[in-house]
């Protein structure tokens, strides 16, 4: 198989124990470079992923509106991401829970909650909470920002690595919900007046919105745009 950049593939596969089968692309036996669906007048239905002719207006299976590329998705994704970043700063600075213990009221931020766990020697739990509440949201925002910058400014970054990163981002994003589940359980259990009482604090709402907005930012983005630029600049990273 000459001139096919398929070589080092299996070791990069991101998914589970099932065997991974490489498909040949349509151009395998020809001399031309990779063929985009766009160039041969085909596109996938955005809803049910049925293959359609670009010239049709509606999907032949589910009758959804077809779109070849969603160029506005970059701006939408940027807008959602910037809002999420501001809210994440807010979520990190302001207290997320309010704890009353024998009359003494303490405001816990995400970070002080984790350092409290470390002080009491619960390292494994501290690591779980740190990953879900600090690492994942920040990684997700930085990752999405890198991704969007690469598309917007046509940066010469390895597009294959960006795509792997993007799939990881999509998958880990959900884990931030952990903190909100813990807060809701704690607040419901610990309500014994002045002796011991837990209440949510403003950062909780900000944190919930960060999760919502970053998931949406990843969802609206049309990732095919990244690979269109690849065809133009002809780098085979």
């Amino acid at each position, binding site marked *: 198989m000459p001139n096919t950049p398929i070589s080092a593939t299996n070791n990069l596969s991101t998914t589970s124990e099932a065997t991974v089968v490489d498909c040949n*692309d349509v151009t395998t036996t020809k001399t031309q470079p990779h063929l985009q669906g766009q160039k041969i007048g085909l596109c996938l239905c955005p809803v049910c992923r049925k293959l359609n002719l670009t010239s049709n207006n509606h999907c032949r299976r589910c009758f959804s509106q077809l779109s070849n590329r969603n160029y506005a998705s970059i701006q939408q994704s940027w807008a959602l991401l910037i809002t999420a970043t501001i809210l994440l700063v807010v979520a990190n600075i302001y207290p997320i829970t309010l704890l009353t213990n024998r009359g003494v009221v303490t405001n816990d931020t995400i970070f002080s909650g984790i350092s409290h766990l470390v002080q009491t020697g619960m390292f494994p739990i501290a690591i779980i909470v740190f990953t879900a509440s600090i690492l994942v949201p920040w990684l997700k925002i930085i990752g999405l920002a890198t991704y969007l910058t690469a598309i917007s400014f046509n940066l010469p970054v390895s597009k294959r690595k960006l795509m792997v990163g993007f799939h990881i981002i999509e998958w880990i994003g959900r884990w931030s919900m952990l903190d909100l589940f813990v807060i809701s359980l704690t607040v419901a259990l610990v309500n014994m007046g002045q002796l011991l009482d837990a209440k949510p604090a403003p950062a909780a709402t900000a944190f919930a919105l960060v999760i919502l907005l970053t998931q949406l930012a990843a969802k609206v983005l049309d990732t095919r745009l990244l690979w269109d630029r690849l065809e133009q600049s002809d780098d085979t990273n």
Partner: protein
Amino acid sequence: MHEFDDHDSIILCHSCDLAVRKRALPSSSRAICPRCHTVLYDSPYCSINGMLALCIAALIIFIPANLLPVLEIHFLGSVRTTTVIQAAVTVWAEGYWVVGLAVMVAAVIAPGLLILSILTQVMIVKLKLHSSFWQRAYSTLLKNHGSISQMTMLEIYVISFLVSAFQLSDFSDVYFGMGTFSFTMLFVIILFLQREYNLEHMWSYVDA
């Protein structure tokens, strides 16, 4: 472009739009895009009867999972318990309705809808309901399947039982309730249900 007239032997990568020739897969394997490594399609292993059984099991365990106490704390002689629904409602009642809604959707509403949606789809396929009403209902359910299953976060809630229990053990004695057991079982059943379910395969019933 006459050589591509046979559309069903070609698929496009939904991440990078590469045109790929489709071929038959051995069971329990998946095809990945040669350029960007997105999973393109799985070999279908959907068993309609298997999914029906899992749906019914999930529906049965859904009720105790949400209504029985999941955590119990003993503090200076008094006992406090909470259920998954109570926890969400309490945060909402404290004025944090965004948080309450998020917890409610991720742990109660989305899993419930997911079970009912798959159950309805399975019944439509199994009973061969071809009338236009059922066919329209079927494609509506399939169109929304992706978002519902993305909002279902049972695995994260199961971990949060452990985290909460450890955090609270600093102040008081913590016990797991029957709800925790039921909720974990619900998570396991839904996990198997989602492994059995294949959206691409379910869509193929519409073509027929």
